[in-house]
């Protein structure tokens, strides 16, 4: 490419930027929509795929009616092909958030499934530890993982989780009817984190026996709070499954053998479990019964107390004055009694004082007597004592005298002895030594004498000694006599004193006796006095007590009366409180009792059903919302085949007209170049490169925006229904290449066509201004009566329109495409809306309001049915049988899910379900000649009246059924069979486990919440659910609500299409107007000079736009019908038959929106036309 060529192209782009831009935009739109919509489905599917394998979504789920044990987990783990196994415990319960019940979308109290999760595994998962046996890992979106027993994680779904599921709030699990929380050690949890779980990708949460019958949300609580030892479910992953595309046939082919193997091991494991339970259950039942009785007693007492309160307050309310007066009277009586008692006490007290005083006197007398006697005694004692002393003295004197006598006698004796000895000595009868020895005894008697004797010589000695001793002896003898006289005297004295003493002793004795007597008398008097004193004190106490009591009673009576006054004044509110109390005791007690009863019932039932225990083994499709997601992806795939076509077609036309105009404008230049010797190819290369630039920029832009924006928007729309991780964009390389090639082909093709035409002519011709296209008469002119009536602008418009056919076609198709897109998508939206109406509205097919699913089969006069029939809120009810089967025919390959419906009473069926032939509007009646099948099923199986269809039940029974009629029906497939025909075909009795009913309209229409924050409808459902034997109560209106949510999603997608349509319409109209203006600049300038006002000038061009728009809209209406049909055919959900007719307002909306886009473009163009310089009209023709 030469530099000058490039410069020329760049200048051309700058000069005609809006033209360049329109090619860029339309190419961007075409490529963007193509690539974007094509990559939406793969992006979504890969996002989900990655999510499932990252979080190890289970491939298989095992349930058992009797719970599963660790042994079961082990058994499954050993199965060949199993990669990971995890036992899971959960409970279903009602939820209180921060103490308040939460309400589900349908108005019933929300129920939750609380899964146990291993905190350690969770932490490991957080730190990235791989663990094959940790299945269905949650992803933390906000907050933290729990670390304590009383913390939990909650559901992040926008649709299902209540707004109060916020970090820091508290969730309390409550027992609803049939939920059993006895296996939980903790029931209140703080929300610490918000998570999404791969197990719940959809807003659908599945069913439960708690509350209204469906699970509202789920939470994760620490598994350590579960006290029971069995698992609710076992999750299994299969080796190599996560490398396969979820939902693909290869995937299911890979999973199914493992499912079969699991089923195969189930029998042995069930037997073990059953024998375990047979041992344990009876004991559990007994202890549960005991608990129940205790609770019942407590409940009844509480109720009685509350009743009394109510009675009391009721009386206050009924007769306030009387109650008060009674109370006053009673108070006065009580006070009188207290006073009487006080008086009695005071008398007793005075009597006691008197008695006491008397006794005191007696005591005093006794005391005086005793004192006197005591004195006497003392005196006698003194006398006695002195007599005793005298006696003693006399005795001792006597003794002393006696001693003197005896000692003197002894001395005399000794001395006499010595004298004798001495005489013996003298006679020689004794030798010296002997005498000395005897003499020595004298030494002890009279030493002086001894000394004198000792000094005597031996010869003289005896004589002398005798001489000496004799006097001494004589002296001693006289002394003895004296002493003997003394003794006599003392003896006399002693005798005297002795008699005196004896006298004193007698006196003392008498005094002592008298004293003792008086002492005893005093003691007796004292004792008596003391006892009377005690009595007095007692009576004093009693009196003061009586006084206090009297005072208190006086006070109390006053206070009581005051209180009573206020009680009576506020009696109505107290009564209300008492009644509330009563009600709350009653309600909570009842639910508790019911729950306890249920627990017992469940255990009993479990025990009873042990022999029929069975494992259910499911793949992912059984999980709620899973197949919905697969459907959604398929739908987008279909849409991606329809819409890009329109955009590419318009893109081709826009490129063609734009390039044609460009080539026309530059024909002089082309001629000059040709004349200068440039080849046609090199001249054309300018335009080709120009278009290439636009195309490359446009498709790049389109791819960038489309690849991200489209999947994002679609995903965002679906995120209302599905809780999935943020979209993972995939580069759809084949589509990017494909889209680019298509746009290149379109842009270059258009350019080559446009330039080839001009380049064929001679340069000289090119250099001359192109002979203006001769004005041509249009067909309309021949109809002169119309033509005459047209003014000039109309005439110009009409002729202009038909002058440039390609432009005309482009505009009409572009606008038509816009209208068609809007009409198709809005129509699709309203078709679903309509089918909802035709199925569920007042005059719709389903005239029933509610469906009941029973736990066991019922008869028309079974107890449960009687209760339901007698309930006047249920206006009508019919017992039926409903089972989900698969059905098909030999004429078609398609196999559908069908409900086999057998009414107990065929004749009555028409008041619940409208049977109607849609084509001839004839009412149909179900009889024994054949089944009535629904239209969609008939179509899918290519069935006419009189043909046969086959069905296969869940138990594997296959039956051929003759078709007697085909009825109008829009949602789900049904086969209606009469009881007799069923019994004939199946050779067995019908098991009526289901009923449909109608509800009092005032209840159904009550959308306002009454007290307790629930609708009447929800309250009724909750009440009905509490009946034993009802497994589910499902309102038709809930189905409608859910379907409406889906419609909400569709409306977002419709919006995307409307935006795309708007861009399309805008580009086309802008382009056409732009070309028109640039081409007719001279003409516009001229009419401006002629004095046309700005508005008139604009109208001159507008008229064309308006007519083109109208024609485009008209075309769009026709195209839209096809788009709509295609959408319906390709987006058809198995269970839904769409209403194929478009409503007038779909047309109106489509037309109006297109017109609005056109008006916007015209407003922009008006500004552009205002700027046209009149002076250009004077310039020569280029």
């Amino acid at each position: 490419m030469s530099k000058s060529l490039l410069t020329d192209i760049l200048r051309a782009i700058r000069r005609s930027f809006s033209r360049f831009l329109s090619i860029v935009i339309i190419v961007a739109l075409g490529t963007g929509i193509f690539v974007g919509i094509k990559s939406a489905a793969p992006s979504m599917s890969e996002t989900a795929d990655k999510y499932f394998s990252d979080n190890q979504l289970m491939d298989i789920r095992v349930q058992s009616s009797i719970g599963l044990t660790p042994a079961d987990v082990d058994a499954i783990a050993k199965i060949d092909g199993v990669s990971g196994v995890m036992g899971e415990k959960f409970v279903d319960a009602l939820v209180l958030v921060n103490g308040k019940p939460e309400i589900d979308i349908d108005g019933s109290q929300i129920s939750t499934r609380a899964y146990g999760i291993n905190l350690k595994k969770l932490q490991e998962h957080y730190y990235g530890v791989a663990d094959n046996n940790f299945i269905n890992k949650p992803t933390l979106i906000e907050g933290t993982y729990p670390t304590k027993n009383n913390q939990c994680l909650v559901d992040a779904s926008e649709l299902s989780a209540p707004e109060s599921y916020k970090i820091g709030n508290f969730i309390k699990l409550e027992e609803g009817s049939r939920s059993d929380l006895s296996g939980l050690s903790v029931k209140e949890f703080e929300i610490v984190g918000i998570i999404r779980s791969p197990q719940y990708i959809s807003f659908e949460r599945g069913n439960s026996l708690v509350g209204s019958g469906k699970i509202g949300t789920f939470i994760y609580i620490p598994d350590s709070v579960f006290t029971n030892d069995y698992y609710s479910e076992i999750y299994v992953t299969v080796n190599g499954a996560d490398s396969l595309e979820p939902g693909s046939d290869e995937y299911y082919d890979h999973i199914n053998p493992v499912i079969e193997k699991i089923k195969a091991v189930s029998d042995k494991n069930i037997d073990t479990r059953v024998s375990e339970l047979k041992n344990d259950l009876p004991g559990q039942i007994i202890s549960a019964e005991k608990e129940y009785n205790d609770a019942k007693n407590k409940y009844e007492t509480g109720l009685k107390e509350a009743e009394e309160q109510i009675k009391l307050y009721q009386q206050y309310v009924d007769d306030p004055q009387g109650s008060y007066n009674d109370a006053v009277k009673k108070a006065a009586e009580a006070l009188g009694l207290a006073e009487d008692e006080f008086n009695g006490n005071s008398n007793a007290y005075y009597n006691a004082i008197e008695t006491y005083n008397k006794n005191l006197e007696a005591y005093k007398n006794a005391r005086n007597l005793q004192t006197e006697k005591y004195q006497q005694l003392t005196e006698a004692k003194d006398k006695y004592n002195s007599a005793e002393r005298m006696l003693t003295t006399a005795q001792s004197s006597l003794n002393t005298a006696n001693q003197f006598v005896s000692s003197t006698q002894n001395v005399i004796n000794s001395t006499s002895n010595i004298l004798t000895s001495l005489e013996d000595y003298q006679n020689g009868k004794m030798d010296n030594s002997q005498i000395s020895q005897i003499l020595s005894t004298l030494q002890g008697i009279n030493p002086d004498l001894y000394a004198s004797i000792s000094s005597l010589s031996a010869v003289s000695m005896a004589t002398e000694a005798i001489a000496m001793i004799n006097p001494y002896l004589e002296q001693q003898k006289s002394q003895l006599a004296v002493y003997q006289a003394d003794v006599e005297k003392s003896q006399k004295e002693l005798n005297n004193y002795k008699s005196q003493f004896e006298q004193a002793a007698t006196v003392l004795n008498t005094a002592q006796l008298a004293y003792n007597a008086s002492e005893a008398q005093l003691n007796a008097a004292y004792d008596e006095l003391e006892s009377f004193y005690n009595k007095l004190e007692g009576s004093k106490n009693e009196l003061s007590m009586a006084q206090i009591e009297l005072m208190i009673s006086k006070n109390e009576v006053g206070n009581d009366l005051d209180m009573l006054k206020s009680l009576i004044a506020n009696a109505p509110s107290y009564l209300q409180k008492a009644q509330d109390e009563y009600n709350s005791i009653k309600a909570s007690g009842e639910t508790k009792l019911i729950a306890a009863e249920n627990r017992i019932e469940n255990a009993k039932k479990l025990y009873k059903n042990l022999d029929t225990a069975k494992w259910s083994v499911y793949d992912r499709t059984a999980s709620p919302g899973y197949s919905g997601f697969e459907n959604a992806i398929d739908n987008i795939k279909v849409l991606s085949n329809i819409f890009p076509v329109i955009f590419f077609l318009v893109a081709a036309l826009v490129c063609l007209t734009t390039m044609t105009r460009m080539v026309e404008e530059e024909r002089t230049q082309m001629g000059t170049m040709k004349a200068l010797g440039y080849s046609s190819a090199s001249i054309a290369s300018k335009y080709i490169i120009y278009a290439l630039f636009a195309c490359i920029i446009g498709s790049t832009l389109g791819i960038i925006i489309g690849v991200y924006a489209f999947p994002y928007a679609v995903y965002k729309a679906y995120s209302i229904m599905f809780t999935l991780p943020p979209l993972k964009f995939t580069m759809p390389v084949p589509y990017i290449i494909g889209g680019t090639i298509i746009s290149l082909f379109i842009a270059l093709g258009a350019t080559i066509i446009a330039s080839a035409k001009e380049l064929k002519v001679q340069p000289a011709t090119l250099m001359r201004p192109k002979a203006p296209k001769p004005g041509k008469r249009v067909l309309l002119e021949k109809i002169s009566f119309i033509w005459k009536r047209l003014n000039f602008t109309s005439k110009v418009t009409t002729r202009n329109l038909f002058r440039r056919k390609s432009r005309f076609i482009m505009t009409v198709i572009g606008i038509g495409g816009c209208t068609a897109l809007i009409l198709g998508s809005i129509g699709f939206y309203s078709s679903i809306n309509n089918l909802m109406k035709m199925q569920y509205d007042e005059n719709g097919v389903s005239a029933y309001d509610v469906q009941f699913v029973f736990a066991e089969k019922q008869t028309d006069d079974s107890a449960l049915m009687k209760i339901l029939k007698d309930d006047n809120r249920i206006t009508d009810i019919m017992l039926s049988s409903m089972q989900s089967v698969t059905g098909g025919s030999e004429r078609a390959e398609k196999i559908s899910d069908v409900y086999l419906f057998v009414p107990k009473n065929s004749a009555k069926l028409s008041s619940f379900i409208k049977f109607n032939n849609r084509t001839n509007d004839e009412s149909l009646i179900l009889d024994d000649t054949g089944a009535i099948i629904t239209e969609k099923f008939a179509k899918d199986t290519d069935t006419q009246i009189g043909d046969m269809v086959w069905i296969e039940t869940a138990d594997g029974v296959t039956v051929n059924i003759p078709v007697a009629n085909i009825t109008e029906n829009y949602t789900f497939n049904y086969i209606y069979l009469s009881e007799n025909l069923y019994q004939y075909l199946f050779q067995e009795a019908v098991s009526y486990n289901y009923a449909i009913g109608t509800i009092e309209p005032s209840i159904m229409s009550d959308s306002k919440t009454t007290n307790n924050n629930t609708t009447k409808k929800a309250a009724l459902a909750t009440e009905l659910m509490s009946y034993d034997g009802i497994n589910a109560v499902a309102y038709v209106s809930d189905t409608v609500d859910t379907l409406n949510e889906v419609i909400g999603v569709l409306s977002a997608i419709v919006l995307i299409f409307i935006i795309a349509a708007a861009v399309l319409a805008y580009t086309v109209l802008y382009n056409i107007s732009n070309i028109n203006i640039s081409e007719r600049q001279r003409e516009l300038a001229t009419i401006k000079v002629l004095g046309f006002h700005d508005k008139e000038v604009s109208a001159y061009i507008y008229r064309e736009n308006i007519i083109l728009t109208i024609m485009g809209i008209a075309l769009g209406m026709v195209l839209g019908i096809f788009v709509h049909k295609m959408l319906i055919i390709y987006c058809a959900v198995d269970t839904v038959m769409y209403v194929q007719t478009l409503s007038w307002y779909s047309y109106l909306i489509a037309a109006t929106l297109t017109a609005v886009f056109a008006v916007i473009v015209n407003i922009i163009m008006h500004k552009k036309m205002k700027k046209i310089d009149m002076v250009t009209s004077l310039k020569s023709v280029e």
Partner: protein
Amino acid sequence: MSFIELNSVYKKYKMGEVTINAVDNVSFSIEQGELCMIVGPSGAGKTTVLNILGGMDECNDGNVRVGGELINNYPDKKLTDYRRYDVGFVFQFYNLVPNLTALENVELASQISNKALNPARVLEKVGLGDRMNNFPAQLSGGEQQRVAIARALAKNPKLLLCDEPTGALDYKTGKQVLDLLQQTCHNTGMTVVIITHNQAITPIADRIITMKNGRVSRIEINETPLSVDMIDW
């Protein structure tokens, strides 16, 4: 007071740094009913004067009076009305709407005028009574210019402005057109201003204004205008 009065009119164009005075202090007046020719070489500023006079362009300075009204101060809307009711314009390249027949082209003008003449009769007057339903492409240059004149006349304007009306025509048809313009002027008393670079045709005018380099170099009153037959070029 004259019907048209220009008083010290300037029109400046800014071309980058340079300011060019396309019209540089131009003053002249034209009486009612006169056929006036503004003559000069290319770039003399005569078309700019005509544009200003026709309300298609604004002057930067000076006064422009038409019929006593000061039109250079008109707002856009009033200026459009001025063009609509008071001025008829004949272009060098006719500027007919190719998709409209001769009659319709005339009607295009007459339908917006409040005192319009009958389009068919005007066409007859310019000698195209039998070509009325032809499209411009089916007409010769002279015929097309006559349709253009008819279109200007049908509005019954006070002032007819013609920009090189014969510029794209051959000698013979040019003469016819000039004759038509002179007749119109003399018969209806309409003021006609013709711009031309062709000095040879000026003798048919009542007043000749010669311009050079944006200035009026000469104003000549021709007491005895020649008929078109008399001139030659």
